[in-house]
């Protein structure tokens, strides 16, 4: 936990989360990480008409985070200190919010609307209010996975009665 004990996170001695570093894996993951993110965004926006959607896109982003985790090049705490609790919260608000907005406007719960706009370059673009709802789902999934990786991937012993974590401490400094 970054905030715990008020210690700056960089001071904490770090070692690869899972075993020793593997160069090939590291480089491959570095290469595909952003591609996966872009692909996830594609899945997200294509979802309404083709395979994909918020849930799957969220899982894909989660899988990308998992890959980074495996390389031991843990991005979750160091390079992107993303507050996953906040992501989770924003997602939950978005999901319930878009569900409730039609109710306030006098329609039934979760009633969706579609707008068609002619944009200069893209041509006719169709947007539905299901998109923010789906985005909320995406954020919830990413938030859950990120948060779990954070707490489970942390090196603090989970249970005092269990042996110390496997894999020797290399004392490597990260970040």
């Amino acid at each position, binding site marked *: 936990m970054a905030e715990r004990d008020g210690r700056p996170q960089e001071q904490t001695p770090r070692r690869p989360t899972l075993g020793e570093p593997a160069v090939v894996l590291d480089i491959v993951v570095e290469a595909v990480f952003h591609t996966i993110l872009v692909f996830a965004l594609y899945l997200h926006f294509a979802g309404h008409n083709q395979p994909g959607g918020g849930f799957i896109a969220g899982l894909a982003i989660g899988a990308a985070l998992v890959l980074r985790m495996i390389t031991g090049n843990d991005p979750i705490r160091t390079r992107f200190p993303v507050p996953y609790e906040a992501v989770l919260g924003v997602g939950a608000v978005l999901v319930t919010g878009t569900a409730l907005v039609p109710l306030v406007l006098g329609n039934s719960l979760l009633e969706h609307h579609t707008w068609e706009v002619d944009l200069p370059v893209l041509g006719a673009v169709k947007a539905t209010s299901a998109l923010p709802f789906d985005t909320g789902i995406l954020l919830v999934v990413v938030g*859950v996975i990120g948060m779990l990786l954070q707490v*489970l991937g942390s090196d*603090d012993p989970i249970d005092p009665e269990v042996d110390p974590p496997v894999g020797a401490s290399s004392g490597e400094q990260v970040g």
Partner: protein
Amino acid sequence: MIAVLVLHVAVAVLAAVVGGRLGRRVFLLTALAPLGTVVWVLVEGGAVLDGTPVEQRAEWVPELGLDLSFRVDAFALMMLGIVGGIGVLVMLYASEYFHHEKGLPRFAAFLTAFTGAMTGLVAADDLLLVFVFWELTSVTSYGLIGFKDEDPAARSAATQALLITGAGGLALLAGILLLTSTTGATSISALTELADAGGIGGTQASWAAALILLGCFTKSAQVPFHGWLPGAMAAPTPVSAYLHSATMVKAGVFLVARLAHPLADLPPWRPMTIGVGLATMCWGGYRALRQTDLKLVLAYGTVSQLGMLVAVFGSGESKLLFAGSALLLAHAIYKASLFMVVGIIDHSTHTREIPRLSGLRRAMPAVVVVSVLGGASMAGVIPLLGFLAKEAAIVGYQQAGFAAAGLALAVFVGASGLTTAYTLRFLWGAFADRPGVTTEIHRPGALFVLPAAILAVPTVVLGVAPALTDEVVRPAAGALYEKAAAYELILWPGITSAFLLSLLALAIGAALFAVRARVEALQAVLGRQRTAADHFQRLLGGSLRGAARVTGLVQHGSMPLYLGVILLGMVAIPLFHLIGDVRVPDGAVLAESPLQAVVIVGSMLAAAGLAVTHRRFAAVLLLGTVGFSSAALFVLQGAPDLALTQILVETVSVVMFVLVLRHLPDRFRVVPWSTANAARIAVAGIVGAFMFGVTLTALADRTATPVDEDVAALAYPQGDGSNVVNVTLVDIRGFDTVGEAIVLVVAALGVLGIVRANRGATDG
């Protein structure tokens, strides 16, 4: 009316926010709220007393037929006058009563909120709305009784009051729902109209009436639910003067009065109200005679008086409804002033114990005058308001037509004797000189005494000028039952039998007071040391222990047992039907393609390996294999969305597992073979066989049209998306998705909490 309620809310919030800077002057701010009620009463009062109720209605939850509908008729107007008028005085009194106690803003906010809830309660017409305000008074009074939250006695008293009145509230709600569903009338006014047309009767209505009465009895501290009221004396005196004289305890009486005319002819009504009411009247009076704490004398006296009000109103007879309205007014006025007197004495001498009080008579003559006037009204001494009201009640019983009215009259007169006796005990206890006792007295300031003194004025004026009182009481009673408006209060009736009975009650009281030492000795001999509060505590403790035992039995903490129970519970009933009725769908084939067979066999091998492996890591990988096999099946069947989801979920969860495994030993604990293992294998086998059978039979036994065609047909026109799976998720069953998302969030927070809690323990 709604504006007045909004004023209460606004003032309560304001008091909570800025009250900290005002000190005890915060009560001068909060006095504005009941002052608003008083102004409203003065402005609208004339028309209401002339017979045109003020009605106001705003839609709230139309689906439940629940409206914010208010209807202030003359009876509600009288109650509003009491709630508002005494409310202002209590606020003024509180501004002198407190010094610099902690949490005054919170207290003031609660008191204002309570005042608002009570105002809404008496003005509400819709029965469900009555219930809402009823519960609000319970909740806010919890905060008021428990004001001294460092004091365990206050906390326990507050809890007791909340639990008893809360349980009664549930009974009331059940009664209201039953009543509205049987009669179709959702408001008090509609119910009255229906009763006038003779439309209320039957078993269900009787049950409804009994349940409603149960609620009223808990709120108005009737035997055997009265224990919370003496306990609530742990509250600061302004609370007692307000909640336990004029308002909250009157809520039950108020509802009994309101519903007496419509419901009195239902079989349980009169036996319950008159029986319980008179029993409470006697028991409260009896208990009051042995208290040594002045406040408890008054508290038990209040229990007794509430019993009287319930018994008088409950009869539903026109004359008694009239008398009850007068009694209600009289009681609110004198009891509030007497409670204020107790607070003054408590402040000036730092004790309320009778044996330690002496010499107060000379130190605070004004307080003596106020107390004597209030007490005399309570005992029913001519020419005070209490006398007129009680006289009307005695005449009412004499003329009453219901069974056993004579017996009720006898008990009523006897219990009035008890009232006189404890009134004398109160006055004697507070102001008599006790040889050998010196009490240190700080003289109370004039402002402190003023509110109580103001209340003494109507006690006298409304007594000597009955025509003035009639102006209010007659329309009020008439609002309950038209015929009740025909009577008038009489100051000097002549030497009638009713007058003689009044004198008899006074004489009994005086005699009981004269032999008080013997009465106390007798009570000590009969001496039931346990109070109702003790019984309540025993009941509460017993149910808590019982709950702990049941929890220990059901929530034993063994994960395999939980799972076993859940799984067996899932299969139990369907399995019973399934046995001997397993069907195979027409045209079933073993496998549709060789690839399918390969995937399935692989999945089965992985599952079998999972069950026998000793290494945790291997188990996780095998579990993953099963999952990925499912994904492969989805691909083969042409379901890309499902396959994609399954693959991603498996990927993430396998890694999560591995992360957890870092903290666990490499191998599973080796468990020697036991019957527990056999049981687990049996459960697993049964559940597996069951699921197989269900899947087969369900496919063979299809009766309804598959829903996927409808969903596919709806997807584009309704959801504007050609991916049916996604449209289903976000639109067609979008509400389910919301629920699932919330479950996901809650589960994640739970995991976070558990892991962090363990870490915290390690670090600590």
